[in-house]
């Protein structure tokens, strides 16, 4: 009988941005049920941590700042001034993020986070825990985690699985190169025959993750007074895209050449004064072409000034003036729209049909958390606050799934699901963005990742494995979710590293290599020759030979593994160099729930597979986890004998 049941197993995957967890393995594996932002808030008492921001709030706005904050419970009645402690589930002000660049930098906070996750799962008593380990964690840190899990949660069994290895399991491939794009870092791991290559793996390549993309956007948009939060949301929206090198950025010379029908571009340059374009130019003058074109520059600048400052305006008490101004703007806009109504509609309809990559400008709905925060901290009455929110909200009401509301849903998918629980919805505001949205990765991020992949694969000692590793790239991690990222990365790698067939080998391969050229000894009849030393026949690709003689070491002990059809195959090519081809591994077909959301969090899926195998299927035979008695015998250092 297996020592554990499916529904008892806990899987935890800590990440720099989001921590995933799940209790119990469903019949068909699903994405993680619990998603928690990997941050904690220091509680009032030092050394304690709260999962949500706790905000002090009083019902009477006038007495905002006189209540002393003693007491540790959520709500304390303090005489007549009732101080209410309110959990704000959206705000991230003052949060501490215990994991940075994959490393655990704040252990007490990390432990508090794990404890919070564990308690949220509300597990029964007999629960084994499988923890997904970041590649950058050191063995000593593994020991520390082991000690924590056994002594804090009294878990009956604990296992660690490497994130890259888990991803490989999820895809069901024995040899692969895993590129895990995280928040601040990228890990590249070569796995051959289920064994990760520890020596050459690139761990925690900083400045290449999702955060770097946001910063890339920010660098471009800063002159237009965008802040980091706006860029972050833009990045997560489908509007932000990383274009492959051969697709021109709209609005540039090449793009115009191809798509002269782009009304915005045409209007801004005045190249074609055709009907709809001209009408568009009349209709929406202030919101016209972007900052990098000449027309309409001042107008957008002015508007952007407003865009940035809303939060500070609100905080500064100039709210009403601002709102009035806004109303006026809205009216003007409406009037302008009416003026050229039909023509403008025609113009507006056209760009919508264009794919994102060909539109120069798009409008983007931004959820202003900072604004919401400052509203809250003003201690307005709840009615007034709701009204303010409604007036500030520019988003289409009750239309979260519309074409424009899409950003919201993606944000949700990224772990902001708590937004729905908040007392009031986020305040949405419209922003316009130009071609900057295609330039998130323009800071050389892709090239650095490509170099890391090249280094990782080149450090694999078995030269014959390399071509297989190149042919099985897996790009995962939430940082790679940005539209077009994976394709652009592949294109970048191919442009730089792909070895093309040499035209010179055509000639050499015509001569059968085992026929020596006639020598001066009189034996001018070509005759087959053995290698000079009776060694391997010389027509064998020397590397292939070296490879086949050296490769027997890592054969898995149990041969009949269904995941390894025919072991590694060596494609014979005249090149000893790699890569001659670079491909992605196809994601598995048989996890319908995962297919919907994508395989960016494949490590979690892999951990589910691993948990099923080590805890249930093989009944502990493979020593994939450490049990409580093992821990009692060996202490934390014993984990190295068990970790996958």
């Amino acid at each position, binding site marked *: 009988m297996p020592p554990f049941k499916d529904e008892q197993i806990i899987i935890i995957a800590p990440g720099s941005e989001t921590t995933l967890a799940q209790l119990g393995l469903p019949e068909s594996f699903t994405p993680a049920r619990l998603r928690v932002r990997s941050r904690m808030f220091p509680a009032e008492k030092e050394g304690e941590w709260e999962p949500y921001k706790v905000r002090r709030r009083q019902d009477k706005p006038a007495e905002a700042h006189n209540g002393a904050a003693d007491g540790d419970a959520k709500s304390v009645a303090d005489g007549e001034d009732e101080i209410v402690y309110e959990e704000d589930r959206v705000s991230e002000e003052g949060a501490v993020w215990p994991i940075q660049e994959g490393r655990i930098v704040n252990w007490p906070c990390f432990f*508090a986070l794990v404890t919070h996750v564990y308690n949220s799962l509300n597990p029964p008593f007999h629960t084994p825990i499988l923890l997904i380990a970041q590649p950058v964690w*050191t063995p000593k840190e593994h020991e520390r985690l082991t000690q924590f899990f056994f002594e804090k949660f009294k878990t009956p069994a604990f296992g660690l699985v490497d994130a890259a290895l888990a991803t490989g399991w999820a895809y069901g491939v024995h040899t692969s190169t895993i590129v895990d794009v995280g928040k601040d870092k990228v890990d590249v791991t070569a796995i051959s025959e289920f064994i990760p290559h520890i020596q050459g793996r690139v761990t925690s390549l900083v400045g290449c993750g999702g955060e770097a993309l946001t910063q890339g956007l920010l660098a471009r948009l800063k002159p237009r007074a965008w802040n980091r939060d706006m860029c972050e949301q833009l990045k997560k929206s489908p509007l932000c895209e990383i274009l492959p090198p051969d697709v021109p950025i709209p609005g540039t010379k090449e793009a115009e050449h191809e798509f002269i029908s782009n009304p915005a571009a045409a209007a801004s340059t005045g190249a074609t004064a055709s009907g709809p374009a001209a009408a568009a130019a009349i209709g929406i003058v202030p919101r016209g072409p972007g900052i990098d074109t000449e027309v309409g520059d001042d107008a957008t600048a002015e508007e952007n000034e407003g865009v940035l400052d809303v939060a500070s305006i609100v905080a500064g008490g100039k709210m009403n003036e601002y709102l009035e101004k806004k109303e006026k703007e809205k009216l003007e806009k409406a009037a302008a729209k009416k003026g050229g109504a039909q023509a403008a509609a025609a113009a507006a309809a056209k760009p919508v049909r264009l794919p994102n990559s060909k539109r120069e400008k798009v409008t983007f709905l931004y959820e202003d958390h900072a604004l919401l925060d400052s509203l809250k901290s003003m201690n307005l009455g709840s009615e007034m606050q709701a009204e303010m929110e409604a007036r500030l909200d520019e988003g289409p009401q009750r239309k979260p799934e519309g074409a424009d509301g899409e950003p919201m849903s993606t944000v949700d998918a990224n772990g902001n699901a708590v937004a729905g629980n908040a007392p009031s919805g986020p305040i949405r505001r419209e922003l316009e963005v130009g071609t900057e949205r295609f330039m998130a990765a323009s800071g050389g991020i892709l090239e650095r990742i490509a170099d890391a992949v090249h280094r990782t694969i080149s450090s694999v000692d078995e030269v014959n494995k390399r071509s297989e590793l190149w042919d099985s790239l897996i790009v995962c991690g939430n940082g790679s979710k940005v539209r077009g990222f994976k394709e652009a990365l592949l294109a970048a790698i191919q442009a730089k590293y792909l070895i*093309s067939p040499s035209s010179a080998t055509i000639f050499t391969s015509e001569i059968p*290599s085992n026929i020596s050229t006639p020598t001066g000894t009189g034996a001018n009849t070509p005759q087959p020759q053995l290698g000079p030393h009776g060694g391997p026949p010389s027509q064998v690709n020397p590397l292939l030979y070296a490879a086949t003689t050296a490769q027997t070491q890592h054969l898995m002990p149990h041969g009949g593994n269904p995941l390894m059809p025919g072991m590694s195959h060596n494609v014979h090519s005249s090149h000893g160099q790699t890569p001659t081809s670079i491909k992605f591994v196809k994601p598995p077909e048989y996890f319908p729930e995962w297919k919907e959301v994508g395989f960016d969090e494949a490590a979690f899926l892999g951990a589910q597979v691993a948990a099923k195998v080590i805890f249930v299927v093989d009944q502990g035979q493979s020593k994939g986890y450490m049990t409580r008695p093992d821990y009692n015998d060996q202490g934390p250092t014993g984990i190295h004998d068990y970790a996958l």
Partner: protein
Amino acid sequence: MNIPNSSSAPAPGEYAGDEVSAIVLDPGWSTTRAGFAGEDVPKSVIPSFYGQIDSDSGSQYLFGENAIHNPLGNLQVKNPWGDDGIVEDWETATKLWEYAITSKLTGTKAGHPSKNGLNDGNDTNGDAMDVDMDTVENQEKPLEDSPLLVTEPGWNSAKAREKTIEIAMEEWGTPAFYLQKTGVLAAFASGKASGIIIDVGASHTSVTPVLDGMVLRKGVQKSTLAGNFVSNQIRLIFKQSQPEIPLTPHYLVKAKTPVDAGAPAQAIYKTFNIPPHDSFRRLEEERVLTEFKESVVEIWPGPGRLSNGTNEEIAKSMPGRPFEMPDGWNQVFGLDRFRPAEALFDAKAAVQDADNPRPKDEHTIPRLVQAAVQHVDADQRPLLLQNIVVTGGSTLLYKFNDRLNYEINSIYPSTRNKLIAPGPVVERKYAAWIGGSILASLGSFHQLWISKKEYEEHGANIVEKRCR
């Protein structure tokens, strides 16, 4: 439970594996290997190169693979090792080795007091956590709870040895220390107590006679005909070929387009506002050369030398191997691929120019072996020649062993000569580390190492007495 059999791992505590997590550090010119004793491969293998950026506010040092391959402006790439195969820049070497240990084995030291979470209050271990975790982080020195075994080349100077123990004891605070020669450890890794160890590394080739686990110091031979020398030969061949073969490292290329063999490259190059230092370019070129060595270079396997009789003709008739440079330039290398490594065995064959004179005959590998064997008693020689252990990354050159075998048999035709060259690449590359891992995990190793107390009592030169 599993029933123990001959192939299952011994139960913990069964072999005298006391629960000490000794760390084995095997510094080399090209890479620095570190890991826990008892494991089969070093967990941490980092390049021995480091980056340095000089600015007005002082120098910034960069360690680790990620940092040194990033083309930053004004980045210089340096190596703490000297030309004589002994560490020259101890200060940086210490930092580099510490990085090798902390970055991938023990975790970084406790950070600044304000950040490490220790000062967030004393009740961290209160009801929220009854585990006393913070003691681990309280330490200031990185190795306070791990004994350390460091390897050294056979020709290490007394000064360097004393320096090593000083660093280990005083900077890292290790409780116990031992220094062992790479030759002995490589022999251990192959399960031999006696033998001749031929170690062809990056900067040096060494031949070490080992008898019963002891190095015969007089017999230790070394020369610079090793991996770097081969790289240099390749550079010379590129330079001397007509037309000159361009060597453009990856970081300068943005995208390449396929061109015909031998045709000039048509690539889009990258430009840098502030380019990295030349030494960075050299390091990156070395990556290309490594690839060249792996996929093109071959050693003439014998019989005879490449220059003998018709051997060159035969070599010419063997199929060439194509190589494509990062910028797309490609060519097939025929005879030329046999030339870079030939001088390891035959000094005459070295490619030369004004700056690179012909190496000395006595520095070739066969002559080193001969010289090493000369220092051994005649009656011990057959024993040693039966255990010729081949190790070092450069011995992975294709057909190296065939040639070595031929050369040794032609010097000693009357004895039974046996090459022991482990097949798995890891064992060949990290033999000394693996030997160290074995040694340090033996229960009896306790008797060998120098404790902190002994060090404090006798001072640094205890290492001369204890680590022979």
